[in-house]
């Protein structure tokens, strides 16, 4: 399997001097073509920073990022970014929103419309193309955002807690649809989540990040196979995998060098209180 994304020795610090906050430290990992990789880490561990660095919205201070073997000075052209909020322009209809990146690329109107309609079909939203974002449910809005990122056919989709704002049912449904999308298009996806079960349900691999500054402290390979139904969550294997990720998260809070917890030492059981289990 060839690699789409190579992150090597990536470091990033916000601010400078005594008030600086290191967000990412010597982070390295790779993502293969067609792979879905989940990044899981404690709140404020710099997950979003990592995605923004890969997209080129932030410039790395150290290390390198290669997408399809290419580095980029600004925003990488081969990246589709899906935010936690759908970020649709409220004054544009669904189809006009999906056409937006193509208009930025100065595609002709008919061509842009054709491509946008196909993308809307892929996410099953072609019936709603003339509606305004305010007329859609949360799940439909996020699907429009996914369609918008598909229009320019990026090599990798970066997703920053894409379904965190949705209810559990819509979220599970969209999780399944993203797997279907990968089956249909072979898209590579890197997504950040704070839900352990979502990470295991969607990911081929789960990269567990340490506390800030983020680095990969454990990699969990998800041995569920590419075809997954929601009922896989009831299997023993799934439970075993989520337990492994949870263990890794606890371990990640432990700094091996100083042999102490970074930040406040958790009370027994309190450590996982933030986590959606």
């Amino acid at each position, binding site marked *: 399997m060839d690699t789409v994304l190579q992150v090597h020795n990536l470091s990033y610090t916000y601010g400078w001097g005594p008030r600086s906050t290191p967000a990412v430290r010597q982070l390295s990992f790779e993502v293969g073509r067609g792979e879905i990789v989940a990044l899981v880490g404690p709140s404020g561990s710099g997950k979003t920073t990592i995605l923004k660095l890969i997209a080129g919205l932030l410039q790395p201070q150290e290390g390198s990022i290669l997408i399809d073997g290419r580095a980029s000075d600004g925003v990488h052209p081969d990246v589709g970014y899906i935010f936690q909020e759908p970020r649709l322009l409220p004054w544009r209809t669904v189809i006009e929103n999906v056409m937006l990146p193509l208009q*930025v690329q100065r595609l002709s109107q008919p061509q842009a419309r054709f491509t946008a309609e196909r993308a809307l079909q892929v996410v099953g939203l072609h019936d709603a193309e003339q509606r305004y974002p305010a007329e859609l449910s949360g*799940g439909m809005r996020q699907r429009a955002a996914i369609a918008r990122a598909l229009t320019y056919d990026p090599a990798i989709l970066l997703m920053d807690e894409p379904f965190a704002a949705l209810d559990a049912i819509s979220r599970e*449904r969209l999780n399944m649809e993203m797997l279907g999308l990968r089956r249909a298009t072979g898209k590579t996806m890197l997504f950040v989540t704070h839900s352990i079960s979502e990470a295991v349900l969607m990911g081929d691999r789960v990269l567990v990040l340490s506390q800030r500054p983020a680095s990969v402290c454990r990699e969990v390979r998800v041995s569920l196979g590419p075809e997954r139904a929601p009922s896989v969550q009831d299997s023993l294997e799934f439970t075993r995998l989520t337990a492994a990720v949870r263990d890794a998260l606890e371990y990640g809070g432990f700094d091996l060098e100083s042999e102490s917890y970074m930040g406040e030492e958790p009370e027994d059981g309190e450590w996982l209180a933030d986590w959606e289990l």
Partner: protein
Amino acid sequence: MAGRLGAVTGQEAAARRAASGQKSPSNQDPSAQDLEPALNRAQTLRQELTREPASAEPRPAYRRAAWEHWSLAISLAGGLAIWWLVVIGARLPRFVMPTPAAVLLRLIDYLPTGQLWSHFVATISEAILGGALGVLFGLLSGYALAKSVPAEKLMAPYLVASQSVPVIAFTPILILWFGPGLMSKVIICAVIVFFPMTISTMVGLRSVDPRLVELMHTFRADGWQILRMVEIPAAMPNIMGGLKVSGTLSILGAVVGEFVGAKRGLGFLVNYAAYQLDTPLMFVGLFSLVALGVTVFSLISLAERRALRWRLHGHHR
């Protein structure tokens, strides 16, 4: 298509289970058979639950009562009636308060001279030229203020001053500099319109959601595209509000300028009629101004409704 994949595979699985259940019921142990309907129920329940919630229904149209279609006519007729009754009842002399009929007769008398039209044209050209100039500069300076901190710092004293002093107080000096003709009124209108337009543009551009700008960056949009596709549409509600205020203020500016020094215009007409104690003519001038103001306001409102049509759909904020 891909969107329905999860549901489709689920249905197939259910169908397969049902089919195998029918073919060889005897092969399965009784507990599994009991389980079959329950599984099917669970399947349909899951499908029910995972169905996308219906999106916002179109708002039910507000049904007007019969009289509401005539509300404007009723309101105007009522006003006229009260006016007439007051003048008749209090026996007010004509030069203090004429009856509506007297005003109408004066209008019919005055129209053939063609002077009303020329006053009208004078005022409207002052207001439109000056207003357009003020709006244009207001948009530009509003953009500069929203984008540049030094520009804001340098302009701030003038903005504060303009908010605390009536610009009308500068009218005499502008008339002195630019004469009693069109030019001075255009400048007055432009100055009056400039500040509210600047402020509403600035506020509008400042209110643009930075997350939408970040989104545009992920598409590698340039500054001009971000301005055209995100910032201007996002600022449009404020800009339209500023335009509405500007329309009214621009007419105000023209009339005030004509009061201070002019040879033509509706403001001049009202002032002139007052000196002549020709109160009916004064009312003709006043009503012409009302008609002009209402027309301008309605046109801008119409433009606003067209530009912000998307707000009629669903719920915003």
